[in-house]
C-alpha cells in the first residue's frame, strides 16, 4: 500500500517538475521519509536519483519543444558546486533559523516578481527583447 502511494506521489512530483521546471524533490523527500521510513538525509540523497531522471527526460522533452538553452543550463549546472561550498560555509556561520528566514524572504521576493508578471499578462511585442 505504501509502495503504491509512493508511486502515485512520484508521478505527481514528475508532473509538477515538468510543469514548472523543478526536479520534484519537494515531494520525493517527504514521501520517502513518511512512506519508506528513510531518514531526512537518506531521503534527500535518494531523491536525487529520481531528480536526475526527471531532469534528463524533462530537458530532453523541452529540447524537442524548442525550450532548452543547453549552454546556459551547462553554466548554471557547472557553477552549482561553488554554491554548495558557499552553502556549507553559510550553514556553519549563521543560525539555521536566520537562513530559513533569508530563504523565505527571497522566495517571497521571487513570488512577487512572478505574480506581477502573471498579472501583467502576455508580453507586448517589443524590440527590446534580450538576445537569445
Amino acid at each position: 500500500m505504501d509502495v503504491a502511494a509512493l508511486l502515485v506521489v512520484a508521478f505527481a512530483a514528475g508532473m509538477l517538475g515538468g510543469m514548472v521546471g523543478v526536479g520534484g524533490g519537494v515531494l520525493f523527500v517527504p514521501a520517502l521519509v513518511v512512506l519508506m521510513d528513510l531518514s531526512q538525509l537518506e531521503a534527500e540523497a535518494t531523491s536525487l536519483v529520481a531528480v536526475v531522471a526527471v531532469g534528463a527526460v524533462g530537458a530532453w522533452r523541452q529540447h524537442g519543444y524548442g525550450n532548452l538553452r543547453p549552454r546556459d543550463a551547462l553554466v548554471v549546472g557547472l557553477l552549482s558546486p561553488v554554491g554548495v561550498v558557499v552553502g556549507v560555509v553559510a550553514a556553519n556561520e549563521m543560525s539555521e533559523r536566520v537562513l530559513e528566514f533569508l530563504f523565505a524572504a527571497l522566495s517571497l521576493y521571487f513570488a512577487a516578481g512572478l505574480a506581477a508578471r502573471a498579472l501583467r499578462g502576455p508580453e507586448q511585442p517589443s524590440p527590446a527583447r534580450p538576445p537569445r
Partner: protein
Amino acid sequence: MSARLSRLAAIGTLAGAFSALFGVGGGTVIVPLLILWLGYEEREATGTSLGAIVLIALLGAIGHGAFGNVDLAKGLLIAPPAVAGVVAGTALQQRVPERAVSAVFAVILVFSAAVLVL
C-alpha cells in the same frame, strides 16, 4: 566575463547553495531568476532549469553516494513513475499560457516560504 555570463554564474552558485542548505533542487531558484534576471520566457526557463538540474542532482547524488546515503533501490523505484510524470507535465505545459506557469510558481514559492518559517 559578460554581464549575462556573470548572472548565469550567480544563479548556479545560488542554486548550489540552496540545495546544500535546504535539500531542495535548484529549480525554485533557477526558474524565477532566469525569468526575472535574464528575460527568459516561462517555457524556456523551465526547460533550461531541468537541464541544469541534471548536473546539480548528478553531482549531489555522487557525493551522497560516496557517503553511503543513497538507497539506490528506492531511488530506482520512484524514477519510472516520476519520468512518466515529467513527460506528461512538459506536454501539458505546452498547452497552457506561459504566464500561468509564473502564477503557479508564485503560489508554490509562497507556500514553501510559509513552510520554512512556520
